């Protein structure tokens, strides 16, 4: 049992070392490297699709990390690097889709649903206020029946 726990702990400890960026890629300039990291986290690895290029061990991810660093070193802005990759791989390369005509539903959808739900709940509450409804008065039949029951009981 202890051995299994120890093994699990060791495996968990090994996880971060599997992450993509390898020491030989790291730039000497810490500011540039920081920009490369933040770009790397928002660029999709096209091979694995749901990992960023920073997280991925795929060959292409490594090539793209090196490319990002080269472009930053040659003076590109973050946006220029993004544009360069989007021109070649399409917007799919961005893990965070930009807000534009084709993606407004994606961005606004959840809020629209929330709003629709709130309106629905609000309307329902207005029609059925909790604990404030006057019970409708008994009809004549009901009154007669109630009297009958009372007499029976007595």
């Amino acid at each position, binding site marked *: 049992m202890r051995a299994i726990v120890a093994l699990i702990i060791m495996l968990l400890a090994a996880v971060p070392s599997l992450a993509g960026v390898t020491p030989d890629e790291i730039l000497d300039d810490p500011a540039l490297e920081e920009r490369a990291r933040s770009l790397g986290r928002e660029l999709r690895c096209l091979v694995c699709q749901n990992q960023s290029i920073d997280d991925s061990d795929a060959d292409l991810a490594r090539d*793209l990390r090196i490319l990002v660093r080269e472009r930053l070193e040659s003076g590109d802005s973050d946006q220029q690097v993004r544009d360069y990759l989007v021109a070649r791989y399409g917007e799919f390369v961005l893990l965070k889709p930009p807000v534009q005509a084709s993606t407004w539903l994606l961005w606004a959808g959840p809020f629209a649903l929330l709003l629709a739900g709130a309106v629905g709940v609000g309307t329902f509450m207005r029609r059925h206020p909790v604990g404030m409804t006057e019970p409708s008065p008994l009809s004549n039949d009901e009154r007669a029946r109630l009297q009958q029951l009372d007499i029976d009981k007595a």
Partner: protein
Amino acid sequence: MNRRWLFLLPVLAFAGIAVFLGIGLTHDPSKLPSALLDKPVPRFELPGLDGADLDGEGLSSADLADGEPVLVNIFASWCVPCRVEHPYINALAEEGIRVVGINYKDKPEDARAWLAGLGNPYTLIGSDRDGRAGIEWGVYGVPETFVIDGSGTIRYKHVGPVQERDLRNAIRPVLEEIGR
């Protein structure tokens, strides 16, 4: 509003979502639309596979805009699906369709041996050892095949091994459309 029909609302919502997700299931998520479609071929210049049975001059963007439609096939000797599609590429070349190759992240000697064994359908081959030209082409998995028209515009992109049905349904129609 007639409240009697209100109960249909969740049913309709469910049907809508089901249709939407059902269509999503028919898409292959590994096939991405190419950002380069209907754009000119990217600028690149590659050395040849020295010693291959060609003029050995390599491949560059200029070779792809000389008035004749051309198929650009990205291949590698280490790529198993490339082996699967190779007979189809050979057959296209035999029909007289011009096919050029980009040898992606491969050792030239391995590529030469591979072509010697399986046949060489390419009139020109560029050796992209570091994969940089591949990035220019938006390559994310080999094999990939591009159909280029005479003006050097990318008209179609196929990701994965070319199969009979891909030729019939997509590649041949595009080739016919651009006058081949």
